[in-house]
């Protein structure tokens, strides 16, 4: 745990401790710090996580589709699918355009929740 000093209320300087959290989502790295929240001069702990950019969004989408594929979910071409994967991301953002060589008999849904589907209009 590294630390630096920050000014907080009453002109008091305190050591601020930092600890990095790496989660198993693969993209989500967070940093916690305490006992001061320097920007706001509050007494507390702060944890921050970077907002995703387009590259990360694409990676997340890719992971989601991979998860669907790994579980053998069959998707009809032309459907718009709302998917919640085991990472917890959910979105109606996928128009499945084509799927080739899908084994329709091999459908296993463990860990996958498809919340809504509909034909794209």
């Amino acid at each position, binding site marked *: 745990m590294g630390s630096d000093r920050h000014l*907080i209320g009453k002109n008091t300087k305190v050591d601020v401790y930092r600890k990095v959290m790496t989660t198993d*989502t693969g993209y989500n790295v967070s940093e916690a710090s305490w006992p001061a929240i320097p920007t706001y001069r509050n007494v*507390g702990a702060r944890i921050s996580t970077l907002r995703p950019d387009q590259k990360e969004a694409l990676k997340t989408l890719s992971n989601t589709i991979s998860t669907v594929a790994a579980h*053998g979910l069959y998707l009809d071409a032309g459907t718009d699918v709302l998917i919640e994967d085991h990472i917890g991301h959910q979105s109606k953002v996928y128009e499945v*355009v084509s799927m080739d060589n899908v084994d329709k008999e091999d459908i296993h849904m463990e860990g996958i929740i498809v919340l809504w589907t*509909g034909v794209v209009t």
Partner: protein
Amino acid sequence: MAWHGGGKLQQFGPMGSMNVWVDFKPGPVIAVIDATIHSRMEQAMKLASETAKENMQQGLSFPSRPGDMPRADSEMLIRNIEYKVFDSPTEIVGAFGVFKEQDTYPENGKVVDLIYALYLETGTARMDPRPWLTLTVAEVWDQWQQILGCGGGGMEVTSTFALGGREGFI
């Protein structure tokens, strides 16, 4: 990568025996991830603030031991532990702690400087630390990691799904 009907397509595949093409719309995906992180951050901060409040030592007739959670002489500190989540252009930030500078005892109107919450954490020349923030962060760290990671958000995994006209087809 290919183009189809004006939409930007991304190919994910082959994966196993499948080739999957989807219309990639980064805006909605980013919005969904943002909302998910925001929601989970709120859950994580709520957990931390509740844990800190619950662990304050109430009902002690003697001072708390150095290094322990503070004794809650009054409910002043407990009452002022809050949490919040806010967004910056690059980050989603969660915080819990004491955000107000002062508060007033309702029974006698006496104003209290809440900087003592910091002094409890760090200690002073005349008082050993009662590091309530450090102890709380340590206690909830693994749960934070779970909430912010895979399988977080208190979501349940079920095997139910519906897929267009294929509802019930499993």
